[in-house]
């Protein structure tokens, strides 16, 4: 397929179709309405089904059902709606069901605003709902990457029988960029012999997260947590910019703000100042080892985010005091400009920042 100019939200929808997803359940919320709208138009063309649910509570429990029946399915929302989906996400982890959920983040707390934000970082990477669990979190910084990660998300969800969250900020959802859907080699995945889809020729399957015997419930917690260990070994992803230079300062940023940092780095480089960028793509599991390697070559680290420093806290703990960690953030839907990042970088390099 040739390159096509697409909005991030539309590319996410098309990527799900390309991944074999034929079911979408969702509820409208800005800035991601183009995902349900794209799916409402596109799914019938490929024999799929689109359902506009009465709420995000219902939409997320519908994907719980469709996934329990063994089918690939998608839901998407933005921050306030994702809060309502936490119930079903926790149940899906507890019942060991695959699912792909897209959060195109907007500003909060409360109703917040409809402009881009990364304020749900902590909710995404620490679990989000009740109970002791994690979801795999993938964070794109371009429309092409959003499409690629959505396709990967379906495979990862099926492989690990765990929900995967694609976490984009509003800018990723709304901007237009060229996208290409290249044919992919088929991936070998375990059969869904656990699905509740009729017990012909076998014993009934039960999809459940209730374990009243504490010893058993504890074992289930351990079994689920064991997969996070595997993720940390096998599923971390990251990228970078200007990392082969001799930099004193390392920026750490994800999503659209990483693009801003890249521009700032190129401008600085033009004036003879070398700064590196480390961009985690998997926010959970976080590429800790790669971060430490990149940070080991810097005298300072600056985390740039569209929130109050949620990833900064993680970076700080991952680096264990080896390098001073600084923070610059914008909130409420404000985007950090390259000039602001340059100013912060220069201040740190000149020893003027705390």
């Amino acid at each position, binding site marked *: 397929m040739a390159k096509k100019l697409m909005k991030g939200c539309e590319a996410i929808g098309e990527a799900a179709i390309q991944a074999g997803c034929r079911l979408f359940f969702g509820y409208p919320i800005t800035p991601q309405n183009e995902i349900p709208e794209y799916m409402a138009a596109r799914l019938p063309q490929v024999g799929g089904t689109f359902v506009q649910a009465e709420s995000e509570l219902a939409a997320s429990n519908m994907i719980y*059902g469709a996934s329990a029946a063994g089918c690939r399915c998608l839901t998407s929302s933005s921050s306030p709606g994702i809060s309502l989906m936490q119930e079903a996400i926790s*149940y899906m982890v507890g019942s060991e069901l695959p699912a792909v959920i897209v959060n195109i983040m907007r500003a909060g707390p409360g109703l917040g605003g409809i402009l881009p934000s990364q304020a749900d970082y902590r909710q995404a990477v620490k679990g989000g709902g009740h109970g002791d669990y994690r979801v795999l979190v993938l964070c794109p910084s371009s429309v092409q990457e959003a499409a690629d990660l959505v396709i990967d998300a379906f495979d990862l969800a099926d492989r690990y029988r765990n929900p995967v969250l694609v976490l984009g900020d509003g800018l990723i959802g709304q901007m237009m960029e060229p996208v290409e859907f290249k044919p992919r080699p088929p991936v070998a995945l375990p059969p869904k012999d656990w699905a509740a889809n009729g017990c012909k020729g076998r014993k009934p399957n039960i999809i459940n997260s209730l374990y009243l015997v504490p010893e058993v419930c504890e074992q289930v917690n351990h079994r689920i947590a064991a997969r996070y260990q595997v993720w940390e070994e096998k599923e971390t992803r990251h990228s970078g910019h200007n990392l082969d230079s001799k930099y004193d300062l390392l920026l750490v940023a994800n999503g659209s703000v990483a693009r801003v940092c890249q521009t700032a780095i190129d401008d600085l480089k033009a004036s003879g100042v070398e700064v590196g960028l480390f961009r985690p793509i998997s926010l959970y599991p976080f590429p800790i080892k790669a971060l430490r390697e990149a940070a080991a070559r810097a005298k300072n680290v600056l985390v740039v985010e569209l929130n109050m420093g949620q990833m900064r806290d993680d970076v700080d703990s991952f680096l264990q005091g080896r390098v001073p960690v600084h923070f610059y953030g914008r909130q409420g839907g404000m985007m950090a400009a390259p000039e602001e990042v340059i100013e912060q970088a220069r201040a740190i390099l000149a020893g003027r920042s705390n």
Partner: protein
Amino acid sequence: MQTVFARPESLATVSTHYCPGCTHGIIHRLVGEILDELGVRERTVGIAPVGCAVLAYNYFNCDMIESSHGRATAVATGVKRARPDLCVFTYQGDGDLASIGMGETIHVANRGEKITVIFVNNAIYGMTGGQMAPTTLPGQVATTCPLGREVETAGWPIRMAELLASLRTPAYITRVAVHTPLHVAKAKQVVRKAFQHQLAGRCFSLIEFLSTCPTNWGMTPLEATRWLEANMIPYYPLGEYKTPE
């Protein structure tokens, strides 16, 4: 020797946790018998609620999914839309269906999902120990209305069959009781019809069962049966509320 009574294949060979005199067991049996008689056990998926029937996933001998509190019909929608060839039913109490899951209930009926809802109205929250339900009768004592339900502050009990029958979307909606052998026999015919409507792809179906909770009503099973007859049936009249024709 001729077999005159046997456990339906659609019920698992286990004993249930239901209290003596509780009609949950009868309702399970009716569903099991009909799944057998319609020959659909092997293509049926049941959705268990949160409530006294939470362990129903162990009692039905077909594929089962445990739902979160109130969301059984959203889960059922997901299953049915993914696999329209399957026979899908939910089994829900009044707290589950008429309180926390009210939004899901109205919308699943309004979308006309081709599923069957087994709704067990026992006028109380059984599992959590006898709190007031949206169906608790005026003056009825529960642990969160120790002086009896006051309609001035708690509102009147919700008549779900009537409420859902008011929707424009075609549906099969009936209220039955299972406190006497005659009522059980009649209810079985209703369960059959409800599943037949689903299997024919005709409409959404819901059966409201008036059910006893001797434990939380603080009665013997016999007293509970009499109380249901004297108090519940007058407020919740039995009968067909909506048919697709």
